[in-house]
C-alpha cells in the first residue's frame, strides 16, 4: 500500500457534507402541485391557440419558453399539461392501489384456489414490463384519458398486490391476530379491523414509488400517440410534437424534457423519503444502529 493511500486510510473520518437533495425534490413536487392546481388561473395564453405564423420560435418576452410547430405557447402548454399529467398519474396509481391491494387482499382472505388464481393473474400481468403492457392495453382499449388511466393502473396493480400479500401474511402471523382469532373474530373482520390499518403505510410507500413511474408511462403513451387527443397538452404529447423539430427549435424540446426529468426524479426522491419514514423495519434498524 502506498503512503498516499495509507494516509487516506488513516485520516480522521469526517462526515461528508450532505446536500439535502430531498428538499429540492420537495420543492419541485410542491411547485408542480401548485402549478397543477392554480396554473390555469395564471395562464395568460391559451395552450390550444395556434399561431401558424409563429411556429418553432425560441424563448422571447411574448413566449417565455418559445412556441411549438403549431405556434402554440410552450409555457402555457407545459402549465396546462402539468395538471393533466399529474391527474392521470395520481388516478392511475389510485386505481392500481385499489385494484391490486383490494383484489390481493380478497384473494388472501378467501385463500385456497381463489388466492392462487388471483395471484396467478397478477403473475401473468407482471411478466410484461408496465410500459409494454400499457401500450398493449391502449391498443385494446382505444385512445382517451380514461383508457390511459385504466391501462397504466392495470399495469401497476401487481406491485400493490404483492405488497398486500406480504403485509397480510406478516400481520396474520402476529400475536394480536392470534388473540383476535381466539375471541372469535372471522377472517374478514380481522382483515378490516387489523390488517388494513397496518397496511396503510406500506401502500402509501408503494404509491410514492409507483407515481413517478406512472408519470413516465403516461408520457410514453402520449408520446406514441396512444394517450389523449393530439392537441391536448400532456407532457408526453408536448415532447412528441417537439421532437420532430429538435433541429429547428431545440428549446421547444428541451423545456418539456427537463420538466419531465425533474418531476420524475423529484417524485422518486420523495417516494424514497416516504418509504424511509414509513418502513417499520428500517426504523427498527436505525434504532439498533443508534443503540
Amino acid at each position, binding site marked *: 500500500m502506498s503512503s498516499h493511500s495509507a494516509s487516506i486510510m488513516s485520516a480522521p473520518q469526517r462526515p461528508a457534507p450532505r446536500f439535502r437533495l430531498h428538499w429540492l425534490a420537495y420543492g419541485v413536487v410542491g411547485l408542480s402541485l401548485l402549478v397543477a392546481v392554480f396554473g390555469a388561473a395564471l395562464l395568460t395564453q391559451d395552450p*390550444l391557440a395556434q399561431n401558424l405564423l409563429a411556429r418553432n420560435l425560441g424563448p422571447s418576452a411574448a413566449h417565455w419558453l418559445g412556441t411549438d410547430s403549431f405556434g402554440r405557447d410552450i409555457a402555457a402548454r407545459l402549465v396546462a399539461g402539468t395538471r393533466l399529467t399529474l391527474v392521470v398519474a395520481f388516478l392511475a396509481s389510485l386505481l392500481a392501489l385499489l385494484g391490486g391491494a383490494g383484489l390481493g387482499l380478497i384473494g388472501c382472505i378467501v385463500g385456497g384456489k381463489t388466492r392462487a388464481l388471483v395471484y396467478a393473474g397478477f403473475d401473468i400481468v407482471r411478466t410484461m414490463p408496465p410500459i409494454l403492457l400499457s401500450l398493449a392495453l391502449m391498443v385494446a382499449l382505444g385512445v382517451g384519458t380514461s383508457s390511459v388511466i385504466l391501462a397504466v393502473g392495470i399495469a401497476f396493480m401487481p406491485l400493490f398486490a404483492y405488497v398486500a400479500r406480504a403485509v397480510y401474511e406478516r400481520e396474520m402471523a402476529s400475536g394480536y391476530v392470534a388473540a383476535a382469532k381466539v375471541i372469535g373474530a372471522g377472517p374478514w373482520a380481522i382483515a378490516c379491523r387489523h390488517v388494513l390499518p397496518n397496511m396503510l403505510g406500506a401502500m402509501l410507500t408503494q404509491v410514492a414509488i409507483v407515481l413517478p413511474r406512472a408519470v413516465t408511462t403516461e408520457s410514453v403513451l402520449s408520446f406514441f400517440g396512444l394517450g389523449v387527443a393530439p392537441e391536448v397538452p400532456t407532457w408526453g404529447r408536448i415532447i412528441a410534437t417537439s421532437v420532430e423539430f429538435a433541429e429547428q427549435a431545440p428549446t421547444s424540446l428541451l423545456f418539456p424534457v427537463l420538466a419531465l426529468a425533474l418531476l420524475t426524479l423529484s417524485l422518486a426522491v420523495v417516494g424514497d423519503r416516504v418509504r424511509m419514514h414509513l418502513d417499520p423495519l428500517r426504523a427498527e434498524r436505525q434504532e439498533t444502529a443508534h443503540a
Partner: protein
Amino acid sequence: MQRRTLLKAFSLAAAAGLYLPLPLSAQTAATPRRGGVLKLALLGLDTADPHRHSGSIAVQQVYVETLTSIGDDGTAKPFLAERFEVSEDGKTYTFHLRNNVRFHNGRVMTAKDVQANLERVRDKVKSGWLSGAMKMVQSMDSSDPATLRVVMSETYAPFLSLLSELWIVAPESEGWDTTIRKPIGTGPFTFGQWQPNVRFSAPAFKQYWQAGLPYLDAVEFDLRGEQDNSLSLRAGDIDVAYVRSDKIAALRGDKVDVQFLGDTAWYFLSFNNRKPRALMQDPRVRQAIALAVDKRSYMNFIGGSDALTSNQPVRPKSFYWDEAIEARDLYAKPDLDKARSLLQAAGVDPTQQTLKVISWQNDYAQVAVQMVRQLGFKIDHQALDDIGAQRALSAYDWDLAPFNSGPRADVYLRYARLLSDGPSPMLWGGIQDKELDTLIASAVASPNPTLARQRYLDAWQHVLDKLYTVGIGHASDVIGVAARVRGYRTGFTWSQNRVDGGLARTWIAA
C-alpha cells in the same frame, strides 16, 4: 500569362460555351453504373396479392406490371401492351402485347395470362373500383397469344387508366385460387423477402423485357410507415424516401435532392353524410364550420407557399378543374363573424356542443380541429392509424373528418368514393345520393373528354351545393433522393416503375 489574363480567358471561354474538359468522375456520371442495393422508405405494402391491395401502389409496381402506365403527363400509355386501340363507341379495347415479356419463372407472357388476371379481378375480388370496372366487361378474346380484345357492356372512360393498377401475375403463382402469397410478375425486380410492416427486399430480374435494365442488384423497402425519414436520408441510411414538406430546407441544405409527385394530394374536411346527427343536418351549421376554415393558412401549414387552395378535388389549372366554380367558392376565405351569426340563426350554442372528429395522426388534423374550435365548439378528437380510422369512420358516429387523398391515376378515382355504393366511402362521410350517382355515371360514360369534364363538374357542383365536404386545397407529396442516386424521377402517381421512368432506370453513383 498573368493570372488575371488567364481568368479572363477562362471566363470568355465559358461565356462562349467552350468549357474545359470535365474531370473523369463528371464524365462518367452520365454512364449508368451497374450493381448495388437501393434503399427506399415510401409507403407500405398491405398484401402480397396484387389484385387485393387497398393501400399504396408504391412498392408492388417493382415486381408486377400492368397493361397501361400513367405517364408523366397523367395520361394512360401502353406498358406491357405495346399499343392499344379503342373503338369509336368506346366499348371495345384491343391490346397488342409486347412479344418479349417474361414472367419471373422464365415463361413468356401471353394474352391468355392477361385475360386470366382480368377474370380473377372480376370473379374473385369483392370490392374496389377495379372489380367494379371488370364487371362491365362483356367478353374477352385471347385466341391470338399477342392480342387481347376486351368488349365492355357500356362506355367506360376511366378503363385505360384503371388498368394501370391491374397487375399481371402468372396464374401459376402460389395462392392464385385464394390469396396470392408469392406473386410471379414481370417487373424489373422479383418478389423477394417480405416482413409485413418491417421490410421488403426485391432482387433484380435478369430477364426483364426492357433490355439492359434494371441497373441495380436489388431494392429494399423500409415498410415501417409514418416516420420522419429526413434524418435517415441525410445520414445516408436511405436513398429514396417520402418526407414531409417542412423538411425540404434541411434536406436541400445537406445536398439531398427533393422531388415532387406529378399529381397532388387533395385535402378536405368531410361531414358525416350517412348518419348525421340533428345538429349537423342543419346546413347553417355546416356553412359555419366551412367558414371557420382558413384555407390559405391550412395549406401553408401542409405544404408552404407551394401548396394551393381550392374547393375542387383536382389540382387547380388542370383539365378537370374549373375557374368559375373556384371563383364562386363561398368559403374561400374564413369569416368567423358570419359563421357565428349562422350558428346563432340556427339556434346553436356551440359551447354546449361537442363535435366528434376522426382523423389520421397527421399534424394538419390538429389545425383543422383548432380552426373549428374557434367557433366555441368542444371537440372530441380521435387521431388514429389507418386501420383504426377506417374502423371508426365506418361506424358513422362522428361529425367531422379532416383527411387527404393521394395522387390518382384518373379523375374518376376522385369521384368513385362519392358514389352511394362506392369503394371505401367513409372518408367522404358515406354519401347516399342517387342524383349524384347519376351525374357521376353520366361523366364516366361520356364518349369524349370535353363532355366528361362538364359532367364531372356538374357532379362536383352538386357536392358543393349539398356541402358534403369542404375542399381545402392541394399539395404535392415530397420525395427526397440521396445525392448518390442517379436516374430516379418521381412520376404522376406513387408508382415506382413506369413506362417513362422509375426504379428500372435508377442507378447508384460510385
